[in-house]
C-alpha cells in the first residue's frame, strides 16, 4: 500500500469492446420524460421573448417571440425524435455522433428557457456574456490543472493559486498603477504556490494531495490575514488596482448573439483564447508536450530515454501555477476591481472537476468550464425573471447539471497513469 491518495483508476479498456451502448439513448430518454412532464404537463401560457441584440449592436436582430405552450410541445417532440434516432443507432451498434448530442443539449436548454421565461424576456447575449465571465477563472484554473496532471502532479491547490494570483495582482497593480504589472505579479504568485507544491511533492515526496489541500488553507490564511491587516486599512494604496478596459474587436464584436460575449472583453479573456489553443497545441503537437505526457504516463520509461523526470515535473508545475495565477488576476483586474477575502469561493475545486470532466484535455476542460458557467448564469437569470423553484434549488442547478453531464455523457475517464505518484529514481 503506497500512495493511496490517487484519484486514478486505470480501468481497463475492456468495455470499449462492447459495441452496443444504451447509455446515451437512456440518458436522452430521461430528459425527454422530464421535458414532457415539466414543459408540457406543467405547461405555462403566454409568450416567451428572447432578446437577441444588445443596445450597442450595430445592426439589431429583432426579438424572438415564441408562444410558450406551442413552442414547448414542438421542441419536446423534436427531442423525442432525436432520442428515437439514437435508439436506432444503438441497435445498429453505431456510435452516437457528438454533434447530435450537442444539438439535443441546445434544444433542451431552449425548451427549458421557453418554459421558464413565459411572460418574460431572456437576454440571450447577456446570458452568454455572463457565461464567459463566470468561466474565465475556471478555464485558467483548469488549464493549470491539466498541465499539472499530465506531467504527473495532482494539483489540488488550484484554489490557492487562483487566490494568490488575485491577491498579488491587486496589490502589485495598485502599487505600480499598472494593470500589466499586476498580471505579472499574479503569475509570480501562482508560480510561488507551485514552487511549494512542486518542492514538497517532487523533491520531498510528500503526498501531492496533502500539499495541495494544505496549500489551499495556507494561501487562504495568508491572504485573509494580509487583507484585513494590511490591505483594508490602506485600501487606497494597496487595493485599488486599475482595471483592464474592455477592448472591442471591430467587425467580430458585431456578430449577432455571440459577438458581444466573445469579442467585447478584456485582454485577459483574449489571452485566455490564445492560452487554450496554445496549451492544446503544445501538449499534443510538440516535443515539449510529448515529453511532458511521457513523464506523466510512464516516468520510468521517460527516465530511461533520458528525460529528467523531476526537472520536467518541477518546471511544468510552475508553468501550471503561472497560468492559474493569471486566472486569479481576472477576478480582480478583469472583474471585481479589488481583492476580497476568499473571493475565489471554491472556483478552484470546480476547475479541478472540469479537469477530470474534460478528460485531462485542455479543449474539453474549457468546454466543461463553460458548461458550468452557463448553468451558473442561467440559474441567476431565471431567479431574477422569477422562477417557480425555491432559490436554493436554483443554486443547485449548476452542480446537478455537472453530475448529470458527467454520469450520462462522459462516463469512464482515464487519468494520466502516473498522476499523483511520486517518482523515485531507482
Amino acid at each position, binding site marked *: 500500500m503506497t500512495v493511496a491518495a490517487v484519484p486514478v483508476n486505470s480501468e481497463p479498456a475492456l468495455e470499449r469492446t462492447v459495441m452496443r451502448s444504451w447509455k446515451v439513448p437512456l440518458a436522452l430518454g430521461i430528459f425527454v420524460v422530464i421535458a414532457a412532464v415539466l414543459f408540457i404537463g406543467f405547461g405555462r401560457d403566454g409568450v416567451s421573448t428572447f432578446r437577441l441584440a444588445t443596445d450597442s449592436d450595430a445592426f439589431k436582430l429583432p426579438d424572438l417571440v415564441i408562444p410558450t405552450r406551442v413552442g414547448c410541445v414542438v421542441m419536446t417532440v423534436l427531442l423525442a425524435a432525436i432520442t428515437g434516432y439514437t435508439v436506432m443507432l444503438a441497435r445498429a451498434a453505431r456510435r452516437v455522433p457528438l454533434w447530435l448530442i450537442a444539438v439535443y443539449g441546445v434544444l433542451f436548454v431552449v425548451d427549458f428557457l421557453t418554459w421558464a421565461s413565459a411572460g418574460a*424576456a431572456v437576454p440571450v447575449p447577456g446570458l452568454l456574456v455572463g457565461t464567459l465571465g463566470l468561466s474565465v477563472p475556471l478555464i485558467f484554473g483548469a488549464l493549470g490543472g491539466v498541465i499539472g496532471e499530465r506531467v504527473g502532479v495532482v494539483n489540488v491547490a488550484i484554489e490557492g493559486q487562483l487566490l494568490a494570483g488575485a491577491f498579488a495582482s491587486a*496589490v502589485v497593480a495598485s502599487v505600480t498603477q499598472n494593470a500589466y504589472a499586476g498580471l505579472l505579479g499574479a503569475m509570480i504568485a501562482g508560480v510561488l504556490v507551485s514552487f511549494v507544491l512542486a518542492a514538497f511533492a517532487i523533491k520531498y515526496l510528500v503526498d501531492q494531495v496533502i500539499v495541495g489541500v494544505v496549500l489551499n488553507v495556507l494561501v487562504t490564511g*495568508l491572504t485573509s490575514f494580509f487583507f484585513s491587516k494590511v490591505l483594508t486599512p490602506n485600501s487606497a494604496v494597496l487595493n485599488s488596482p486599475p482595471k483592464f478596459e474592455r477592448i472591442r474587436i471591430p467587425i467580430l464584436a458585431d456578430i449577432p448573439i455571440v459577438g458581444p460575449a466573445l469579442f467585447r472583453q478584456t485582454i485577459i479573456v483574449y489571452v485566455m483564447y490564445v492560452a487554450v489553443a496554445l496549451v492544446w497545441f503544445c501538449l499534443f503537437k510538440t516535443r515539449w508536450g510529448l515529453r511532458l505526457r511521457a513523464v506523466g504516463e510512464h516516468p520510468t520509461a521517460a527516465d530511461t530515454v533520458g528525460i529528467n523526470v523531476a526537472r520536467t515535473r518541477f518546471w511544468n508545475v510552475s508553468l501550471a501555477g503561472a497560468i492559474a495565477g493569471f486566472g486569479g488576476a481576472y477576478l480582480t483586474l478583469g*472583474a*471585481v476591481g479589488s481583492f*476580497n477575502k476568499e*473571493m475565489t469561493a471554491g472556483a478552484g475545486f470546480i476547475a479541478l472537476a472540469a479537469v477530470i470532466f474534460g478528460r485531462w484535455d485542455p479543449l474539453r476542460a474549457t468546454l466543461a468550464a463553460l458548461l458550468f458557467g452557463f448553468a451558473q*448564469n442561467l440559474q441567476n437569470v431565471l431567479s*431574477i425573471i422569477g422562477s417557480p423553484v425555491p*432559490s436554493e434549488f436554483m443554486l443547485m442547478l449548476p452542480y446537478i447539471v455537472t453530475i448529470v453531464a458527467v454520469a450520462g455523457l462522459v462516463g469512464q475517464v482515464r487519468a494520466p497513469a502516473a498522476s499523483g505518484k511520486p517518482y523515485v529514481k531507482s
Partner: protein
Amino acid sequence: MIITPRRGLAAFASVGAAALLLAGCAPAPSSSGSSTAAGGSDSGTDVVPCMVSDTGGFDDHSFNQLGAEGLEDGAKAIGAKATKVQSDTDADYAPNIDNLLSQGCTLIFTVGFNLSAATVEAAQANSDVDFAIIDDAADNDFDGKTDADNIKPILFDTSQAAFLAGYAAASYSKTGIVGTYGGMNFPTVSIFMDGFAQGVAYFNTQKGKSVQVLGWDSAKQDGTFIGGFEAGTDSLQAAQNLIDQGADVILPVGGPIYQSAAQAIKDSGKDIALIGCDADLYESDPKYKDIYLTSILKGMRVGTADVIEQAADSGFDTTPYLGTLENEGVGIAPFHDFESKVPSELQGELDDIQSQIVSGDLQVKSYLAS
C-alpha cells in the same frame, strides 16, 4: 533545489516584512506602556469589553465589522482595551466565548444568530459576566423572553429603513424597474430585501405607478441569491443580469458583495444607482461614491459603543434594544451626490412616511415587527 520551498515561504513572509519596513524608523515612544493582558485596569473602569464574531469575520463589511468598530469606539471611550476573536467555523463559538471568559472579559458581545445558543449557555453558566448579542433575541425556547437574565439582545428592524430606500428607489427609477439580490436567504439579509420591496409597492399604490422589483418575491419570501458572501464573479454576474433586465437601481445585500455590483454598474456605462447596506457607503467606501443613491443604515457601531459606555457609567442594563426609525437605530443616509437627481418632492415624502412609520400609522412587515 533545497532552498526552493524556503524561497517560496520567504517570498510570502517578505510581503509582511515589507509592510513592516514601510512603517520605517519612527522615533521611540518616551515610555513603554504596561500593555500586558487584556483590560486596562489603570483607567478607572473595570469593564473589559470583548467580542466574538460569527464566521463572516471582522472584515465582512457588515455586522461583524460594524460591531467591532463599535467595540473599539466604546473601549476607547471608557479607557479599556478590547479583545476580539474571530470564529472560523460553527464549532468555534463556544470555545471562543470560553477563552474570552478565561481572559477575564466582563462584557462579551456575540455577533449573529448563529451564536445564540452558545451565548445563552455561557451566560447561564457565568452569571457574573455580562453578555450582549447582536441581531438575535437570545430566545431559544421562544417564550418571548431572553433565556438568561444577563444577556442584552441588540436587534435592528432594518425593514423600516429599507422601506424608505425602496420608496426612494421607485421614485428615482426612470426605467420603472429596480432590482435586489442577496448572499443567502437568511432573515438578516431578506429583511432588507423585503422592506425594500414593500417600499416600492407603497410607492406604486400612492402614485398609481407600477415600478417592478426584480430579485425578491414578497409572497414567497424568496428571491435571487448568489449562495455566499464573497465579492467575486457570482455577485458581479447577478448585478449584470439585473442590469440586462433593465433595472436602474440595485440593492445588493450581504457584506462586501456590493463591490462587485458597483463594478458591474461601472462596466455597463449606464446611469445606474446602487443602494448600500449597514453603513453609509458614501463615507465608508468612497471609491464608488458617484453611484450611491443612498444607504440603509443599521446603527450597530453606535449601538455597541453605547452599551459599553453605559455599562461603565451606570451599570449594565439587559433591556432588549430594538433599533427602529423612532429611536434612530436604523435610517437612510443622505442622497449626497444624488441630491439634485432625485425628484425634488422626494425628501418631503420620505419625511412624511418616516413619521407615519414612527407613529404606527404605516406598518412595515418584518419578522421583528410585533
